[in-house]
Each structure stands twice: as structure tokens, then as C-alpha cells.
């Protein structure tokens, strides 16, 4: 018998179509973690909406959660489509997958404003520093000096999406690596339990165009320069079937909106996950050293979401019946009388 989660749903039902990405692509590892995270959290697949833009990363929603609606939209515009879908049905879990080209270049405006609004969604950036589908041009997250496959260094300074998100007021900012399953799975699980926009910037090496010597986003480089801020564990709100291993060392539990907790066991002394300035300084320092600082970088679990800002009713707007959305004829008459 296959493994089932709290809802009695086997993990197979969280899977999707076969990936058509290159063998060994970092994105496929992330897909695998998304499947695990949704399975572990006991999310009903039909209550997830998988959203994406255009690019290799944006193809991945077809490879997980086949029982969820998916929308492969327009390049760089996933945030706006997601915002609309989230507002039409607030009961949905919006799971957006984007890439570095999709988010940091063509879609940077939508990324910025989506974060500003705190639209309820998980926003995963599968970040490899290159445009894969168009054969290896640098993207806006390529580090200065990082070399292309032909050996040409990138001369322009990169956009770091995690520090940008923190500056914009994002309440949940994580950074991770597709080759760090122990960190990435609980990070996605926590993001799924977070109420507002949860941004996870995941370095995901492109095995075809950006996995060579001289690249700062190759598998080997990231493996060697990945500095993990904490050990992360996700503790669900329900009693888990399997016992959770409690890690050694000093740990802090932070409660998320649905009652679950993220347990942070610091590997770096005195890092305050609720301190914006500290987070930005730590990211800057690590970038200067050529390192990738990963983990839960910033968390504000009290931030108001777009639903609260708009004072939206609990019933999804999509489900409102006619009598609640078409006012009576008397109301029309009353309004018209003002124009007479």
C-alpha cells in the first residue's frame, strides 16, 4: 500500500505529468519538493491553483498536482493573474512558479506590486541566472563576473530578489537551493501556511547552459558556497502520522497563520528572523563574499493581507449567488431618482 497523508490521499495523487525539462534540471528537484510539501501539509489538490508565466520554470506546474487547476499565462505576468484568481476565490491556495527571467526582468514590475499588495500566494522563483528556453542568455540575477558557457563574464550587477522582496515589505522571504531538500521542503511547507505573499528564491542550476566552471549558479559552486542560516523543520497544526525528529541545538518555534509552526534552529548566532535590516545586511555580506545565504531570511507573521485590506467577504466572490450580487429593482429606482 502506498503512503497516505492526513487526508488519506496517496502521494501519487500529488504528482503531475512527466517532466520535459533536461535530465538533472534543478527545477525537477523543486517540483519534487512542492509535491512533498503539499502532501505533507495535507492540502486538498483541488484547492490549489498552479500559476506560472513563461519559461522553463513556468512549464513545471504541469509536472505536479495533476488534480489542481493550472494556468500557464503570459511572460512575467503570473503575479497579476494570481492576484485576480486569489481575489475571485479566497479559499484557494495560490501556488505561483516563476523564473529569474520571468520575475527579475520582464515581470519585475508585477513582482514588486504583488509583494506590495501582499496578495495571498506562494511565489517560488526557480533562479538559474540564464534564459534556458532561448539557449543561455544571461538573466538579471546573473552575478557580476559569472561566466557564460562561452566564457564571457557578466558585466552588470545582479538583482537580488530576496533582499528586494524584504525591502518591499514582503512578510515571508526564503532563499534556498534545489540541491538542499532538507531545507527546501519545510520552507515550502511554511510558505503554504503563510497568509500573505510568501517569496522563496530557489537557486536551481541550469544543467545545460549554466553549470560550468566560472558560473556562480552551477551545481558545484552553489553546493560549496551555500551557507545555511538555520536548520528548518515544519510542525503541522495536526498531529502528524510520523513522529517529527526534534533537532539538536537552540531552536525557536514561530507560529504561522494556520496554527502550524516553523522551527528554526540557528546555525548562525543571534540571527533575528524578524529584523529587516539584519536580513538585508546578512544577504549583502554573503553576496560580497560570493556566498549564497539560504534559509528563512525574514518573517513577519502579523502582516495584513490583501483580503483584509479589501475587507472581502468570506464566501469566494466566484460563489456569490445572484441575490447577493445583483441589487433589487427598487435600488435602481432610488439611484435613478438622484439624476432627475
Amino acid at each position, binding site marked *: 500500500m502506498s503512503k497516505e497523508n492526513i487526508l488519506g490521499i496517496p502521494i501519487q495523487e500529488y504528482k503531475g*505529468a512527466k517532466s520535459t525539462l533536461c535530465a538533472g534540471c534543478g527545477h525537477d528537484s523543486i517540483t519534487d519538493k512542492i509535491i512533498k510539501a503539499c502532501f505533507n501539509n495535507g492540502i*486538498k*489538490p*483541488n*484547492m490549489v*491553483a498552479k*500559476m506560472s508565466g513563461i519559461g522553463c520554470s513556468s512549464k513545471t*506546474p*504541469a509536472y505536479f498536482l*495533476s*488534480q*489542481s*487547476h*493550472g*494556468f*500557464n*499565462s*503570459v511572460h512575467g*505576468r503570473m*503575479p*497579476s*493573474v*494570481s*492576484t*485576480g*484568481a*486569489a*481575489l*475571485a*476565490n479566497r*479559499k*484557494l491556495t495560490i501556488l505561483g512558479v516563476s523564473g529569474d527571467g520571468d520575475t527579475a526582468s520582464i515581470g519585475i*514590475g*508585477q513582482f*514588486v*506590486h504583488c509583494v506590495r*499588495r501582499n496578495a495571498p500566494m506562494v511565489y517560488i522563483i526557480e533562479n538559474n541566472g540564464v534564459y534556458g528556453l532561448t539557449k543561455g542568455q544571461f538573466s538579471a540575477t546573473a552575478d557580476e563576473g559569472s561566466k557564460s558557457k562561452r566564457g564571457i563574464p557578466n558585466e552588470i550587477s545582479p538583482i537580488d530578489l530576496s533582499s528586494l522582496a524584504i525591502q518591499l515589505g514582503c512578510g515571508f522571504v526564503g532563499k534556498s537551493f534545489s540541491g538542499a531538500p532538507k531545507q527546501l521542503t519545510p520552507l515550502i511547507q511554511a510558505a503554504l501556511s503563510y497568509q500573505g505573499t510568501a517569496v522563496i528564491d530557489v537557486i536551481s542550476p541550469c544543467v545545460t547552459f549554466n553549470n560550468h566552471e566560472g558560473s556562480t549558479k552551477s551545481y558545484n559552486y552553489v553546493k560549496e558556497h551555500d551557507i545555511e542560516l538555520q536548520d528548518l523543520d515544519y510542525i503541522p497544526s495536526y498531529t502528524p502520522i510520523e513522529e517529527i525528529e526534534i533537532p539538536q541545538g537552540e531552536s525557536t518555534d514561530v507560529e504561522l497563520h494556520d496554527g502550524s509552526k516553523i522551527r528554526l534552529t540557528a546555525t548562525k548566532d543571534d540571527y533575528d528572523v524578524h529584523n529587516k535590516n539584519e536580513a538585508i545586511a546578512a544577504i549583502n555580506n554573503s553576496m560580497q563574499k560570493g556566498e549564497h545565504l539560504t534559509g528563512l531570511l525574514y518573517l513577519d507573521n502579523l502582516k495584513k493581507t490583501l483580503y483584509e485590506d*479589501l*475587507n*472581502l*467577504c468570506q*464566501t*469566494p*466572490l*466566484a*460563489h*456569490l449567488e*445572484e441575490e*447577493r*450580487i*445583483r*441589487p433589487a*429593482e427598487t*435600488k*435602481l*429606482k432610488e*439611484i*435613478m431618482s438622484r*439624476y*432627475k
Partner: protein
Amino acid sequence: MKKTINNVMVSVATVNGSGSQSANLIIHRSLFRMGLPVSGKNLFPSNIAGLPTWFLIRVTEEGYNAPADEINISILMNAETWDDDLDKLKKGSVVICNSDLGKKVERDDLIVYEVPCSSIARKVDTKLAKLITNTVYVGVLAEVIGLEEEAIVDALSHQFNRKQKAIDLNLKAIGEGRKYIQENYKKDQPWKVERRDLTKNKMIIEGNQAGALGSVFGGVTFLSWYPITPSSSLAENLISYLKETREYVDGVKTYAVVQAEDELAAAGMVFGAGWAGSRSMTTTSGAGISLMTEFIGLGYYAEIPGVFWNIQRVGPSTGLPTRTQQSDINFCYKLGHGDSTHPVLLPATPSECFEFGWKSFDITERFQTPVFVLSDLDLGMNPWIVDDFKYPDKPLDRGKILKKEDLEKLESWGRYRDVDGDGIGYRTLPGTDHKNASYFTRGSGHDENAAYTEDNEAYARNMKRLAKKHEGLRSKLPQPIIEHSTNSEIGLVSFGTVHASMQETIDLLEKEKIKVDYLRIKSLPLSSKVHDFIKKHKKSFVIEQNRDAQMFNLIKEESTAENIKKLCSYAYSDGMPLSASKITKNIKENL
């Protein structure tokens, strides 16, 4: 002196931002209160304050809406345009001017009333003088043409929402204007107004207010928008109607409004919300549609509902953004890359803005495709006199949606299967509690079951089905209407606000013993009735307000060779509503 009763064209030249709009609306509403059909056109610059602005008021018992070619009474409150405004006047016209501006009327063939409006206003209230300088000319005009005091009081009460202090102050300024004429001028002038009973139970409303109201009664649940003249007032009116009609006591809302960062995002949100089952819309103008093109192109192929209001104006960007035009007909109808056309509704009056406001949601959800409502600045932002709007005569049509219960009865389903033979597939909404509910939405690379494919035949089949679906719109959209029928051999065809000039055109032609039939188009794709009308007539003129004869060419594109020979075009645009006399002249020359 021979009097002309209830047939006058007044122009008021003021400075933008000087508060003249409220004075002009008081005149407009006073005439309305006297039972007179009156049109008002605000010609304003793209500016917050300081540039010249004009307000045109026309009274006719026939209810002609477009401005007349000749101005009978010119009110000069702006020194900058003074000389030009005077040059436009014919011999014998009337001038009312603010003599405090330090300018003189150097023509002796006009009937001139020089009034120190600024000094009179200061005398009434030193502190608020600037605000009421314009109100003084209301009094002067009232005295000169015969506006009834009772109608003015009514109009003031409406304008200032029954705030007695403001009403009294303005009434005093009006009284002083009247008094100045009584004491200083014995002479009379020919244009007079008299009470009639032609506006009973009617409303004064702007197209954007009507469109917003229609959207409310269409059950809109989602609006995303980006501010752009002349569409912003539709969004703003909608927001206030929604606040009034769709909130609970504690402010909990049954709708969401997002002011987007740009039109790209506004369109993206509309489709996200429409896809997830919301009645969603946006409102913009041509420049905004340019940015929305990417999404609307996808909306056609991904088959997602969404209502797009385009309040057309002259463009692009720094064109004449505050002037009116019917210039996005072709653009909106064929928007997007690849083969695509879109349903376009063409309201001609505020009543149709209301009607299409609610109907557009039924159409977009029934046909699962983006719908345009093409209004324009003249319709959207000027005051129009109309009858009561008709409450929707049928329940909401949410289109073909499979729910959990439906899926339980089906062995399988496919999002893009043509089950009913009308080219329209069934959709499910995200969140539907059934294992088979989900499907994947993308552009054109999918098969009947929404599975990804690059198979050429599957692509071609899908394109054929889409064409069938859009063909079906021809008979299901608001159908053309024969507005005037005399069994003539000459046909006139128009749409949108050009309609406002058509009754006058017909009357002018009849004065010259030329009888015509007139058909008004209400939507695209064209109904076969348009082609039938052209076939029935020896010659048909397509009259529109743009340079390139966009509607004429759309008709021609799908006409028979025989019908093409019968088609004539009158296309003209200078940013102003079309003049009936110009239309008439063109028709006469080309008969």
C-alpha cells in the same frame, strides 16, 4: 425683433480649474427643469488648471445632441481666447462678457452685454468672489434668454446637494447678474427659451455613470483598473455604487477593486479573476488597450471571460487625450497576434451603456471570451438626457460551468470539446471538489482535453472550433436596429455616438426632399441584418467618426461584390462630435 424660441447654441469660454463647470451645469439643469431637451459638451484641455476650456449648450425641442455649427450666444470669461471666440461669431450674434478682464469687444455688428462679473462677485462676497464670478454669468444669461427662477433654484439645489449656504450664495450672485442687466440694458436679443414639457421623468446622466450602474446590476464582483482619461470616472462611479449597494453594515464587501500598477496588470487580474469564476472587468481608453493587447490575445485562445470598457479618445499618449473619437473599432475587433476577433458592443446612449453594462457579463461568460464595450469621451463624460433605465429582464447567465454534481454524472469531460455543436466548451472553476475537475489553461497549444500538444491537426481543429464559436456571436449579440424607415433607396448606417447627429441629419435631408432609411449597428461581429439592409438599398452611407473609415472597411471586407458597389463612406474626425450639417452636405454631394 424676430424671436427664435427654444433653438439656441451657447458657448461659454472659461479658464480650466476656475470652477466654471458647476456654473455651466446649473445652466444645463435649469433648462432641463424648464422641460427643454438640452445638450452639454465640455471641451476641456489636458490640464489641471489655467488652460482655456469651453462648454457648449444647445437647446432644441427636437433634442438634437451634437453641437450646432453656429454659436448664437458667446459668453467670454477668458481673456486669452477672447479675440478668437469673437472671430467665430456671425453678424447679429450675442456676446456676454466679463468687462473686468480689461478687454473690449471691437465689433459693432454684435449684440453685446458687458458685465463686470468679477466686481459683482466681490460685492456679493469678498472672500468667495473667485468661486462665484462664474455664477454671475448664469444670472446674466438667465435674464437675457429667459431662464425661469424656479428652474434655477431647483438646479442649484441639485448641484449643491441641498446645502443651503452654497445655494443662497450662488442665488445671490445670480440675482446680481440679473439686476445688472435690468438696470443697465434696455435692448433685447432674439434667442429666447420658454417652458415645455419634454423632459418629464427623464434623467441627466453621463455614459460613464450609466456604464458603472449597468455593471453593478450585472453583478460585477471584480474590477481592476489604471487611471486614464476619459475612463477613470467609470471606475470611480462604479466604486461608489458598489460601496452603496454591495457592502454589509460592517463594511464587508461582496466585490474586490484593485487599482493596478498599469494596464498590463489590470488585464492580467481581470483574466485571473474571470478564470476563477468572478464577474470581472476593467475600464480604460485606447492607450491602455495597447498595453492590454498581450493579455486579451491570450484571453481569446485560453477562452477566459472578462469585460473591457474602452472609452475612446484621440491618442496616442500626448495626442488630444480629452477629445472624442470612434477610432478603436478595427483595433479592438481584431486585437491580438494570430487570428482573432472579439465581440464588441457599441453603445450610443447612456441607456445602452447601462444595458451593455450588465449584458456584457452574460455574453462574456456564455461565450467564454473577452468582450469589449466601446464607448467614447463624448458619451462617457458629457451629461445626456435619457429615460429611465430598464432593470435586467433575465437572470444572470453564468454560461457553461460544470459543478461537482455535473462531474459526478459524467464519465469524462474535456475543456475544449464541442459537445453542443456551438463551439463553446464546458469549463470548471478552480476549487471544484472533484478529482476530474482540473484542467490546464494555456495558449493555443492544447487538444480537446486541454492537454499540451503541438500536433498540427489538433491546432487546426481548435482554430476551426474557435471560428465557429465566434460566428455564433453574430446573431446572439445586440442586433442592429432600423431607427428610421421611409422605404427609401438611400440607406444610412452608423453606430455609437454618431447616432446623436443622425436625427438632425435625417431632418435636414428631409427639408431638402431627400428621404432616407437609417440603420444603427450595435455590435461586432456584424449581424447579417447589416448586409441585408445594404442589399435592400441602392446606396448606403456608412457614417463614422474617424479618418480611416474603419467600420466601412469592416463591412466591405465581408460584403458581396454587389453590396460593395453600393457602399459609400463618410468618415471624419477632428476630436469633436460629428456635425449634422457636414454629414448632410457630404451625403448630398455623393448621391
